[in-house]
């Protein structure tokens, strides 16, 4: 029974994180940019979405969509730091991530009645419904509710995936891919690769924020510390997805990344079963990530040479 509940939980969280992973797929896989700012934009999305619902009465689904723009703006900052001010890619991400720690903390003041900063704001304390608290969800038994939540998340994730797939087929999408693969060609085509980097980072962090908003809905609370470890989680999801699932014929990278996020979240949740106090969770997490990286290397070594055409060439 516990195992069953853990699995269901893991899948829900997995779909939530899939949105984040799809964003990081854009920055990491397509633009070849290891973007650490997602650690900051994830909680940013959560707090912006919560404020919009609580203070402006914006419907949950719209508030979630709007949180995209908060992440988008933060991504633009990361991009501008790197492209215009020539800060290295890792440091640009670290700068934005650090700055956002204060921004999100300042924003939580808007959530509490007395204007204090809190690290956790519970939706129930202000009888805020969120995306999954409404009648549709509560009128059924709790067993059914979990499946409805899962279904809604699935619809959202698939919609985002299809949107990204479509985008990557456009001229703009091609330029993004070209920027990650061969910047000099983009210059030859008369365009500034820096602009595409900024755009890609903005979109990636937009999705990170949406993911953070969904995460808040899922737990009926906004947690200011929810960003920590999201880079690792997202990278692990993307790498599992690309190495394991993308190899299967007819599975697009975006689909593979979703599977990757689901698998990784499940693994994390099962780790909680083992480590009930949660003390070693981050350590286990790090070990798991290392295993994935090593496995990724091995797989590449074994499979290179007879790679399917579909896998294309990766540097």
């Amino acid at each position, binding site marked *: 029974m516990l195992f069953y509940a853990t699995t269901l939980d893991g899948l829900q969280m997995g779909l939530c994180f899939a949105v984040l992973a799809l964003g990081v797929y854009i920055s990491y896989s397509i633009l070849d940019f290891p973007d650490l700012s997602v650690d900051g934009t994830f909680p940013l999305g959560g707090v912006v979405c919560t404020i919009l619902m609580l203070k402006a009465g914006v419907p949950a689904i719209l508030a979630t969509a709007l949180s995209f723009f908060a992440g988008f703006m933060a991504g633009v900052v990361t991009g501008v730091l790197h492209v215009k001010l020539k800060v290295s890619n890792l440091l640009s991400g670290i700068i934005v991530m650090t700055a956002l720690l204060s921004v999100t903390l300042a924003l939580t003041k808007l959530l509490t009645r007395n204007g204090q900063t809190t690290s956790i704001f519970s939706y129930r304390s202000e009888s805020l419904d969120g995306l999954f608290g409404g009648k549709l969800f509560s009128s059924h038994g709790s067993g059914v509710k979990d499946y409805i939540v899962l279904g809604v998340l699935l619809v959202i994730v698939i919609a985002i995936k299809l949107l990204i797939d479509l985008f990557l087929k456009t*001229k703009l999408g*091609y330029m993004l891919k070209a920027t990650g*693969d061969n910047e*000099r*060609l983009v210059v030859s*085509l*008369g*365009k500034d*690769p820096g602009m595409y980097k900024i755009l890609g980072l903005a979109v990636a962090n937009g999705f990170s924020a949406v993911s953070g908003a969904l995460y808040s809905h899922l737990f009926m609370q906004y947690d200011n510390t929810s960003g920590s470890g999201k880079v690792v989680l997202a990278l692990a999801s993307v790498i599992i997805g690309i190495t394991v699932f993308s190899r299967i014929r007819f599975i697009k990278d975006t689909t593979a990344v979703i599977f990757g996020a689901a698998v990784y979240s499940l693994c994390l949740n099962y780790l909680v079963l083992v480590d009930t106090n949660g003390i070693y969770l981050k350590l286990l997490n790090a070990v798991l990530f290392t295993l994935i990286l090593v496995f990724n290397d091995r797989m590449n070594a074994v499979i290179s040479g007879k790679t399917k055409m579909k896998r294309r*060439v990766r540097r």
Partner: protein
Amino acid sequence: MIELKNIYKVFNAGTVNEMRLFNGFSFDVKAGEFVSIVGSNGSGKTTLLNIISGSIPINGGSVYLNGMDITEMSEHIRARKIGRVFQDPSVGTVPSMTILENLSLAENKGKPYSLGLAVNRRKCEMFRETVLKLGLGLEDKMDIPVGLLSGGQRQALSMIMSTMTPIDVLLLDEHTAALDPRTAETIMQLTDEIVKKNRLTVVMVTHNLRYAVEYGNRLIMMDKGQIVLHKNAEEKKETSVDDILHIFNDISIECGN
């Protein structure tokens, strides 16, 4: 067409590695000219092309294109008028994209890269015919990622991509150097064809003295950031590969190697 006036270029200024390459260097190319540049390693040929294309900043002087001062213009804006093929075949294409996708990208140059679909299947036939003319068998590989093609095949593709849309100037930097002799010959002939058809102005750097003598209508030899030999169209017709080789060797001996 291209005019370099009184160019100064210093690398690593103010350090022990300071290297003054160009000191008041001037050079101009008229519209429709095909200039071949030869010269020993480190003589400044690539740097010259980089200055024309805007890939590196200069310390003094000005660059004109079509009479317009482009000294302050960034590289990607200049690229709208200037095509370039590099020595390394992988620079001119996107390795993870297919031939069809690469050609589609290149064909859109000059227009906005918007949210329209990138690959227009109706143009596929046209692209196929373009690569068919190369005779490298690429027409059957339209959906294969360019990264899996050979260097020569990629270089041929780069050549086509950089000249697909109207440009004024074509810069070639040892673009046959990484290829086997037969493929190099093919690419060189293709270059000549494209240049003649589109009436391009060309600056070609090469270490192949025969190409330098055979192709183009001007020849320049560079050494230590200076032009040490200049043959115009008439003089060039009278020049043989051996003549150039002698001069080349003389300069090298003066340098003590």
